[in-house]
C-alpha cells in the first residue's frame, strides 16, 4: 500500500471540500467514505443558505458535489476506518476490510453520531469493557461475556467470542431477528449502565442486572477520541484551532465533527481550511 499525502475520512460536504482543495494543490489523497456521499445530506429537504445555490434540495446538492468530484477524477474508497494510529512521521489507518492504509496526514470529516456511551462504559474501557472482539477474545478464555451489538453486523463478532468464552449473552440494540448459534443466549433488554465490583462486571438494564467477566460494546461507528488514540476531544467533537489543526501534528478535523454549528456551508468551508493547513504543513516538512 503506497503512502498518500492526505487521507480524508468522511464523504459529506467537509470531506468532499477537503478532497477538492487537496487535489487542486497537487497532493495525493485517499478519500474514504461512502459512494453515496452522505445520507444525511441527501435527506435534507431544502438548503437555503448555501451561497450560489438558493433553495437547493439535499439530493441536488449531493448530485452537484458528486459531479464536482467526478470532473476532477477524485475517487471514493469505500472502506470503514476503525482505528487511526499516530506514528509520528505518518498515520496508519486500520480499515474494517483488514487493509492498513498509510498517510502523511489525516483529515477527520466523519460527522457526528448521536450515540452516547453508557454510564460507566468509558471509565471501564480496558478494565472489563472492550470495543474490539478480535483484539480481546483470547483474553476471555473460560470467561463469561456480554456483547451489546448495535447492528446485525456485530452478530458474527459474538459468534467469534463464543469460540473462546465459556458463555456469551447477546443484547441486540435493534429490532431485527437475530441469527446466532444456539449456545448464545439472546437477551432483549435495554442496557442502562455498566459497573464493576472489582471481580465481576455488571450490566444494568431496565429489567434487572446481568453479571459477567467482560462486556463488549460493539457500535457501528466509534467516537473520534476512540478512533484516534491521543486525540483531544470536547464531548462528541474534536478540538481544533481556527486552522482546523488538532493537538496531533498532521491531524486535522472539519465539519460537524469539529463542532457546531452543523451547517453544510460551514462544513465545506472548514474542509477547505483543513486541506490548506495539511498542504502547508506537508510543504513545510518537505522544505526543512
Amino acid at each position, binding site marked *: 500500500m503506497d503512502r498518500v499525502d492526505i487521507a480524508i475520512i468522511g464523504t459529506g460536504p467537509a470531506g468532499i471540500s477537503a478532497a477538492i482543495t487537496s487535489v487542486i494543490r497537487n497532493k495525493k489523497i485517499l478519500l474514504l467514505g461512502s459512494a453515496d456521499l452522505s445520507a444525511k445530506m441527501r435527506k435534507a429537504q431544502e438548503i437555503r443558505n448555501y451561497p450560489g445555490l438558493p433553495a437547493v434540495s439535499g439530493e441536488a446538492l449531493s448530485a452537484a458535489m458528486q459531479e464536482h468530484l467526478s470532473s476532477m477524477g477524485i475517487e471514493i474508497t469505500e472502506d470503514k476506518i476503525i*482505528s487511526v*494510529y*499516530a*506514528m*509520528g512521521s505518518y498515520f*496508519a489507518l*486500520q480499515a474494517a476490510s483488514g487493509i492498513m492504509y498509510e498517510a502523511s496526514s489525516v483529515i477527520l470529516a466523519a460527522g457526528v453520531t448521536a450515540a452516547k456511551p453508557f454510564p460507566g462504559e468509558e471509565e471501564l*474501557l*480496558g*478494565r*472489563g469493557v*472492550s470495543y474490539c472482539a*478480535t*483484539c*480481546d477474545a*483470547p*483474553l476471555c*478464555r473460560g470467561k463469561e461475556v456480554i456483547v451489546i451489538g448495535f447492528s446485525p453486523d456485530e452478530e458474527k463478532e459474538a459468534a467469534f467470542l463464543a469460540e473462546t468464552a465459556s458463555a456469551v449473552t447477546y443484547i441486540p440494540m435493534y429490532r431485527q431477528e437475530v441469527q446466532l448459534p444456539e449456545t448464545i443466549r439472546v437477551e432483549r433488554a435495554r442496557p442502562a449502565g455498566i459497573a464493576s465490583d472489582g471481580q465481576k462486571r455488571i450490566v444494568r438494564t431496565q429489567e434487572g442486572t446481568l453479571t459477567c467477566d*467482560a462486556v463488549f460494546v460493539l457500535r457501528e461507528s466509534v467516537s473520534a477520541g476512540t478512533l484516534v*488514540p*491521543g486525540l483531544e476531544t470536547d464531548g462528541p467533537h474534536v478540538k481544533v484551532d481556527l486552522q482546523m489543526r488538532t493537538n*496531533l501534528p498532521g491531524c486535522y478535523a472539519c465539519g460537524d465533527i469539529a463542532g457546531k454549528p452543523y451547517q453544510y456551508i460551514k462544513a465545506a468551508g472548514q474542509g477547505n481550511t483543513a486541506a490548506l493547513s495539511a498542504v502547508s504543513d506537508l510543504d513545510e516538512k518537505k522544505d526543512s
Partner: protein
Amino acid sequence: MVKKISGDDFQEVLESKKAVVDFSAGWCGPCKMLAPVIDAISSDLDGQVDFFNIDVDEAPELAAQYSVMSIPAVILFKDGEAVSVAVGFRPQPELETWIRDTLL
C-alpha cells in the same frame, strides 16, 4: 531496546528499579502498532529505564496476576511494584511523557 521475556524471567522486572512492561500478543493489531513506539521510547530512555515485552499467550498467569483484560497493556514498575497502567495504543509523545512523569 525492548527485552522479550517469558513468565520465568519475570524476576528481572521485579528486580529492576524502573521498568516498563508491554503486555501484548502477535495477533493483536494495536499491539503491533505500539511496538515501534515503545522501541523508540526505549532508545530515548536508554540507561534510565528497563523495557520489557511479554506475550500474554505465553504467560497467561502473569496477565491474570496483573489484571490484564485488554491489550496492549503497558504497566510501569517501580522497585518491583506495578504503579501505573495504560491500556491501548497511545502516540509516542503522550506515552513518553507518562513514562517520564511516573518513573523519572
